[in-house]
């Protein structure tokens, strides 16, 4: 493992280009991921985690677009790549797992065929050979009876099994970076843990770096060495996971950690302790475009700014 970062994201801005002032939804986000490292990205819904991830593989949906910054992957800025070069990278070097295993697979094709596509696309294999490799890929994600399961359709599988198929697809070509966007959110709690362990096990065995996106700090703490906290389109804190839990600096991170239930604290001396919730609502895009987006919420508001008044 070298010290040169695998992914170096600098000052990423994502927004809707065009008329008037550009409306940036993700602003000035930057972090690095080393080869083989697991990096977590936490934040609530709408904080820009998924947009950040999608912009890495250039799959943002119009009218959203990257409006600034650099996405250096192995030293090369992905923003400058041709579409064709980007396609070669996508799936092969950078793979992605999505949140919804129920809808992320084509309902009309067998899972084997959908895995085999990876070998046809990136390894130049014929369908017959690719189909054989798909059996191995299914076996590697611990799907029982893979020889039969390759012929199954997604509707014949449970959510957990489908997510395993997604993992098999993503890791089929041994990518350098796996982006997992809330890979367990849609699954049963019992299955969540298995799927996470599987991702961790396979990636560390293959030396694949992981960008794990979640709103669940517990998930991140289990898997990631470092973590970034996103809040309203900005990366407000980036630390070693251990340090972050021990000493959260940003008020929003403190709020997030305060909202976690703790074992044994329910029947404290002072009676039942309530979970802390984070006041207020996510700011709408209008107020996001104003300078102090954190003003929109009380506990996050900096006392100094409060004194000075604001938006």
């Amino acid at each position, binding site marked *: 493992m070298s010290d040169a970062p695998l992914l170096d994201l600098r000052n990423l801005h994502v927004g809707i280009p065009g008329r008037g002032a550009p409306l940036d939804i993700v602003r000035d986000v930057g972090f690095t991921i080393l080869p083989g490292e697991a990096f977590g990205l936490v934040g609530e819904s709408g904080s820009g985690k998924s947009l950040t991830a999608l912009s890495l593989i250039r*799959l943002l949906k119009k009218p959203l677009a990257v409006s600034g910054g650099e996405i250096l992957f192995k030293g090369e800025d992905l923003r400058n790549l041709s579409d064709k070069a980007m*396609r070669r990278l*996508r799936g092969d070097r950078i793979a992605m797992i*999505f949140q919804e295993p129920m809808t*992320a*697979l084509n309902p*009309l094709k067998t899972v084997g065929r959908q895995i085999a596509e*990876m070998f046809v*696309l990136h390894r130049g294999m014929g369908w017959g050979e690719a189909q054989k490799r798909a059996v191995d890929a299914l076996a590697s994600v611990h799907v029982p009876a893979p020889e039969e399961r390759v012929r199954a359709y997604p*509707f014949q599988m449970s959510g957990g099994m489908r997510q395993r198929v997604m993992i098999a697809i993503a890791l089929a070509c041994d990518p350098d970076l796996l982006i997992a966007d809330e890979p367990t959110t849609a699954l049963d709690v019992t299955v969540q843990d298995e799927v996470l362990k599987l991702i961790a096990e396979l990636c560390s065995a293959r030396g694949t770096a992981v960008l794990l996106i979640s709103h669940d700090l517990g998930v991140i703490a289990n898997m990631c060495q470092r973590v970034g906290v996103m809040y309203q389109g900005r990366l407000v804190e980036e630390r070693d996971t251990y340090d972050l839990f021990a000493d959260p600096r940003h008020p929003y991170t403190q709020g997030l950690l305060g909202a976690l239930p703790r074992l044994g604290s329910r029947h404290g001396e002072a009676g039942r302790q309530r979970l802390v919730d984070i006041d207020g609502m996510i700011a709408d895009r209008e107020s996001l475009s104003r300078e102090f987006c954190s003003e929109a919420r009380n506990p996050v508001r900096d006392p100094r700014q409060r004194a000075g008044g604001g938006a």
Partner: protein
Amino acid sequence: MLRFTIRRLLQVIPTLLAVALLIFVIFSVVPGSFASSLMADGRTAADPEMLARLNEQFGLDKPLYLRFADYITGLARFDLGTSFRTREPVLDVINARLWASLKLAVAAMAFAIVVGVPLGFIAALRPGSLLDSVTMIGAVSGLSLPQFWLGLLLMYLFALVLGWLPSFGYGGGSWRYLILPAITLGVTPLALLARTTRAGVLEIANEDFIRTARSKGMSEARVVRWHLVRNVMVLVVTTIGLQFGSMMGQAVVIEKLFSWPGIGSLLVDSVSIRDTPVVQGTILVIVVWFLLINTLVDIVYAAIDPRIKQT
């Protein structure tokens, strides 16, 4: 697949029986009979004695349930009765006309599919483009035009003004006579197909599995070929089936307009002289056609979509 097909075909039988009963009852309670329509000259009242003799001759004096029993036993032997007017078996009368109708329906549907589906596809791939707008405006116009009026318009333009095509008639089966009625009959399904295809493509293109396909590093052409087309076909086949099935019924007006010797014009002629056996037989054929097409659609569905075979 074979079991599915057989099961679906067997399900047609009870429907057919119910329809036969319905047709029979309706035409028995409609006022007027073949006998009275023969005698009516608009001035003198028909001779009651004569009427009674004619009714006896055609078996119309028997009670309804006996007539129905005769009818159904005849049906079981593929005997649809005898035409009051020509004294020929109804089956022969229909047989002489059926092929012209089938030819017209198939030609109209082929025209609708070959033009409508690609148009809808292209329109959807460039939503908001000029081609898209023109196609959709054309589709709405095609849906709202009365068919007989469109037929007259085409006749006027291509037969009278330009003199390229014959204005009406069968021409002994020459394809030049087929063009105008087929286009007239095909415009409505064409417009519907263009709209359904466009809506289908736009819907499927937004599915998660299309994003998955892109994240695999597929070119747009492959995304369309491997993952979009088949899913859209499920939606398009529904429209094709419904339109094709109801086409025999819709063709009644067009056949009359273009003096096309099909079962549509046979139906109109037979209704006006109360030739009940022919009317019943013709409607039965139209219904059988509809049921067969529907069954065919179900079988095609099962071939496209693996989820259907299971249930």
